């Protein structure tokens, strides 16, 4: 039920992000979604791509530090209240969110929320118990490709 996210270390130098995107595009690696967390000095780029192993090798051979990290994807109707429901479930189980980001899938009616929790297994169990729709990788790629 957990997905692989490709996390990349980005030094805050001009052109670094563009360089990375160009590299993935040249190699026909489609970015399903991404999120960038940054400080004055460096950033952490979190990518969802189908060919994460290929992308990781590609980035590494081009001098990036890349790492696979597990995240959880939850599908929700694109309407208010969904996120707060998830957060209260996790809070009740004593789990905290390290980071999260979201994207709207092609049909436009549903949103996918991606989460990294401090305790991933416990988080999955809590979400399953609440009957929330957790997407596996096949489902996620299907949604993304519409």
């Amino acid at each position, binding site marked *: 039920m957990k997905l692989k996210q490709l996390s990349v270390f980005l030094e805050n130098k001009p052109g670094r992000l563009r360089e990375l995107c160009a590299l993935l595009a040249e190699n026909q690696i489609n970015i399903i979604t991404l999120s960038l967390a940054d400080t004055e000095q460096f950033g952490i780029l979190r990518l969802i791509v189908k060919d994460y192993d290929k992308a990781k090798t590609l980035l590494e051979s081009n*001098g990036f530090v*890349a790492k696979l990290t597990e995240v959880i994807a939850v599908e929700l109707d694109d309407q208010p209240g969904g996120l707060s429901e998830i957060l209260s479930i996790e809070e009740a189980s004593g789990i905290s969110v*390290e980071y999260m980001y979201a994207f709207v899938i092609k049909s436009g009616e549903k949103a996918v929320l991606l989460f990294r929790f401090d305790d991933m297994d416990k988080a999955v169990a809590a979400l399953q118990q609440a009957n929330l729709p957790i997407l596996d990788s096949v489902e996620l790629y299907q949604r993304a490709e519409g």
Partner: protein
Amino acid sequence: MSKFVIENRIWDKEESLPRGELKALQSAKLRETVERVQNVPFYKEVFSRTGITPGKIQSLDDLQRLPFTTKADLRAEYPLRMLAVDRAEVARYHGSSGTTGKPTMVAYTQNDLKTWANLCARFLTGGGLLPQHTVQIAFGYGLFTGGFGLHYGVEHAGASVIPAAAGNTPKQIMLMMDMQVDALVCTPSYALNISEFIIQNDIPRNALNLKYAHFGGEPWTEDMRTRIEDEMGILCFNNYGLSEVIGPGVSGECAVRDGMHISEDAFIVECINPETLEPIAPGEEGELVFTSLCKEAMPIIRYRTRDIASLNPEPCACGRTTVRMSRITGRSDDMLIIKGVNVYPSQVEQALLRVKGTAPHYQIVVERPDRKDVATVKVEMTEESFSSSMKEMQELKDKIGRAIQGITGLRMNIELVSPNSLERFIGKAQRVVDHRKIV
């Protein structure tokens, strides 16, 4: 410039002995030192390995037959295997930072402490100290020899001490004003901070009674002297020393201020080529090497200081006959002095090794933006140390910072950088980038 004019005073007759007499004195004391080091296993072993018996060392001409002592030797004998006396006879210990986590420990007997205080009183007197003066010491008091060495030197000269210790600039200035301090002892870069604070806070010059300052603990320049003298209206004197040899008191400037007189009755100085180890002609730069002549607890033979300077044997207008050394212009190793603290790049490496997953690829960048040294360590990321969580990344930076502070005693900024982004020369990274302009 200062309106203050210093009287030319000489503290000890040993400072102005005829050269022949001085050399005879040095030869006699060298023989004693060679006898004394037979109590030190390290030297005993060195003597037997090289086939030198103490009897073969009769005069200064024989000095070059003796092997050098290096910082690595002292480290290998950590903490106290270089002691030439029983521990019961030791009166005090000091230490200096080493290339790795451990300091180099040095020891003093009661007699050593008297010798040391006298050597400090000697250079302080050469640089204006009178018994009626009040001296503020803004050096660290601790393992570092600066604070205690100067402290007892001032007292020995009959003057009075304010042991302000390092830091807290407003308080330093308050004490200088309220106590009408005559002289300041600190590092030259700290004096720049003090001066800047005085200017920024519009403290009138006549609120202070400061006449002169004695600076040591780090290299500085003539430009820096001019600047501090102009800004503060005082005279600045340079002094030199290192704990392995005794601490401050190895040499200091006289009123002429053209080189630091080395107390040659207490030390033999040599200047060598750090590559070939051959002697260097007077006036030319080389590495200074010292042999102690009157230390009991830890006598040292031909200690390679790694400090680069030149020697001037010409007689000085002040009347002293001792040889003068120039300012330290560099190092023959990679030691850095940051905020007056000795730092070796290998200490940073040691610290990184303690933080799981960090690469041994790093670079230390030193700058002096507002007259204060700022050191930044750039650390290359690895897959192991990298995390997708910002919190964990901040924790990594903190962990590296704490490890470095634990070993060097200095707080440094940590910057995480991409792998292979640090400049490398012939496969070897350039460990240090020093942007400081010492002016």
